[in-house]
């Protein structure tokens, strides 16, 4: 199945901003995240604009957005 992965802030360094990927059915958020070996801890995960846990199972057409812990205001 096909998913869109978006990275932000420090996670972009030496990686990408947005990429469409083929993954097997049953792939979870944490499968995708671990494969990328992101530096530091994961702050925010959105799947289709909703907060998701690492154990969330992805579906075809999903957009996964991964942020380090960020803040401002």
């Amino acid at each position, binding site marked *: 199945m096909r998913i869109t992965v978006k990275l932000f802030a*420090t996670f972009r360094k030496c990686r990408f901003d947005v990429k469409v990927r083929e993954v097997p059915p049953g792939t979870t958020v944490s499968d995708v995240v671990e494969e990328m070996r992101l530096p*530091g801890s994961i702050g925010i995960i959105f799947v289709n604009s*909703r907060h998701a846990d690492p154990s969330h199972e992805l579906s075809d057409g999903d957009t996964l957005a991964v942020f380090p*812990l960020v803040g*401002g*205001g």
Partner: protein
Amino acid sequence: MDKILRVDMGAEGGPKFKTEPVGEFAGLGGRAMTSAIISKEVHPLCHPLGAENKLVIAPGSLSGTSASMSGRISVGCKSPLTGGIKESNAGGQAAQVLARLGYAAIVLEGKPEGDDLYKIFISKDGVEVSVDNSLKNLPNYPLIEKLKGQYNDRAAYMTIGTAGEMKLLAASIACTDPEKRPTRHCGRGGTGAVMGAKRVKAIILDDTGMKMREPKDPEKFRNANRRFVEGLRKHPITGEGLPAYGTNVLTNVLNEAGAYPTHNFRTGRFENAANISGEVQAELEVKRGGIATHGCHRGCVIQCSGVYVDKDGKYVTKQPEYETVWAHGGNCGIDDLDVIARLDFLDDNFGVDTMDTGAAVGVAMEAGLIPFGDGAGAIRLVEEIGKGTPLGRILGCGAEVTGKVFGVERVPVVKGQAMAAYDPRSVMGIGVTYATTTQGADHTAGYSVGPNVLKSGGDLDPLKPEGQVEMSRNLQIATAAVDSTGMCLFIAFPLLDQPETFQALLDMIGAFHGITLTGDDVTALGKSILKMEREFNTRAGFTKHHDRLPRFFLKEPIPPHNVTFQVTDEDLDKVFNW
């Protein structure tokens, strides 16, 4: 900080001042000080631009010490924008300098007759209040250029631009940064209009010959400050994200969350948000020879500010903040950082709140004055404010006035003050804060965005009403206390996530005063401030019906989540039940 300077601008024969002991206000700083004086001494039914109102300027209780991050200054008054009590705070150099001069507060009282414009100079040698009509009609940047040549290089400045002189309701008070640029503003609630009504154009603070304030227990204080700084540096938000990308790191987050108010709160997603994100902004600044990491005051270890330059490397403005980039950017459908930076400069130069001004432009776009996305048109509109045309005066009075004048229903304000860059339908916790804070819609009064969206300081679903009231209550209490210390609010991220950093702050305050401070003491202080402010607003005529969002937030679902604000009125009325 054992004295209060009172300047009676309306005294017979010209302004008179006196310095008095801090007395019953001893130990208070920042917001605790401004709200205590306003609630005790200002008639709640007075006209905000009249002689009965007072403008109180107070450094935080830790300002002027060697405590990191302690450079926030609070300005209080009855707000001409909201009609309620106001505390607006800013960074820059003023708090540290004023505190080292020994003043716990400056209180501007009364109102002079006639057209003369005044400046107030404060140094170790005393106070001078003098007429300087050569400053009339000067925007902030040329004003500072003119004043700089006349005073010591160490001086810090608090000034109003042309908007303050015109007494526009969104007028700000500018504080200079370490490079003496008028970039840090007490933006919210029209404090600049109150300073303008008192005919004070500039306050010049020179701490030459003064020393840092000494703690009662210097060794404990140093140790606590060290642990505090370690905590800030090791937290990802204050140690990495904010220094690298500034506050605008939030554009992509809120946009991804579907909570980024776009086209005057019509949708929660801006298709061109990536173009104005913090990531792109920082890269552009570095590429052009600007600065992506900069402190707004000496002693700041977070360094979330920066310097924005044009394609030729020439200074345009300080790094526009997230709220500004949103207000003038996505809120107006504008995706050009150069346009937004120009608008940020104009706001600072004329001295208006970037949020209420951006929201007013968005409302003007809704009314059809110019189309959404028209950057050149937005610049023309804001330039009208500087010219003082009737249209400019309307816009410079903020979103609510603009909406009334142009017959717009969708006006994102509470108690007359514009909302910030978070839609209250898709971040319901911030909706509770917008609705109920004493300040008018104000995201900083209880930053529920942390637990709702950023997953910092807790974890609560932003799209559900459950738990939002309790969270907003706790954050409003904690914020009122932090706003009293002079500490930058961004310390709240590590404070809420790292108990040892919170303890370090308690130890630092305790060591300064030679006492032992607990979390309960902090909570008690926060509650006492909110109580004073609520009581002032009640006496000014506010009821529970003012603690509500505009009805369109309850009626119009916002895409992409297609939700309305669902916290009930009954629950909103429980925020201050503790």
